[in-house]
């Protein structure tokens, strides 16, 4: 649980920052059209910004998932039984 929380807290900061930048960098013309039709900011976010920013957000999330797999393997040194733990056990037994 602690390992999952540690990964989640760190990557949430990185992902949140990038998500905010992606949402700000979407083209403004469709959003102006939605605003002209009377949509609220929440509806503009739900129907305008998020669908346009979704490909970038998804690709960066999977990019961070790859980092997460690597971090989870290293977390084996603190007790989680994954390949790193098995490697450490084998090296302790001089079983290269």
């Amino acid at each position: 649980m602690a390992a999952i929380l540690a990964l989640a807290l760190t990557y949430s900061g990185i992902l949140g920052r990038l998500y905010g930048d992606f949402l700000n960098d979407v083209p403004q013309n469709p959003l102006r059209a939605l605003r002209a039709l009377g949509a609220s900011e929440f509806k503009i976010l739900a129907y305008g910004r998020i669908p346009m920013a979704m490909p970038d957000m998804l690709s960066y999330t999977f990019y961070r998932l790859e980092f997460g797999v690597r971090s989870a393997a290293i977390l084996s040194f603190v007790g989680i039984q994954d390949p790193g733990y098995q490697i450490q056990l084998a090296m302790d037994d001089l079983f290269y």
Partner: protein
Amino acid sequence: MACSNWKGWSVRASSRSRSLEGRGLLTLLLAAALGLSLLSVDWTGGLLHSRGVSSAVRIFGSIFTPELSPKFLGLALEATWKTLTFAVTGVTLAVGIGLPLGIAASGVLFREGWLRTSTAAAARFVLAFLRSTNWFGHSCLLWHLGCRRWPRFSHWL
């Protein structure tokens, strides 16, 4: 940009050469720093531990004779699955925490005014705090806060 007279060419050429001189000077400074650091190393003895050579040879030799027994492969597969589970769970939780904070930090929920600025600033502060510490630092912090389910880590402290 078209140049109407040769004086314009000479001005552009001199400014280009000045920038190149700046880069050349920086390269020289970096090379000098590298050279000084290399000269400060004691190359005469004790750089490589002699007893580690045989272990290193055994480790690199074992690359050509991997363990392929069904029992070991099953163990490796199970461990890999656990790693993937931890990673996917962690990143899923990170998306659940990061997405609302990211939306708040972008300030897109409010049009203008102090509410937009203050919400964005507060969310950015939280995100910067979360980003500031490496995941290992977060894990140590959580350990000290009571999440003590690391049997192999406990003997380090």
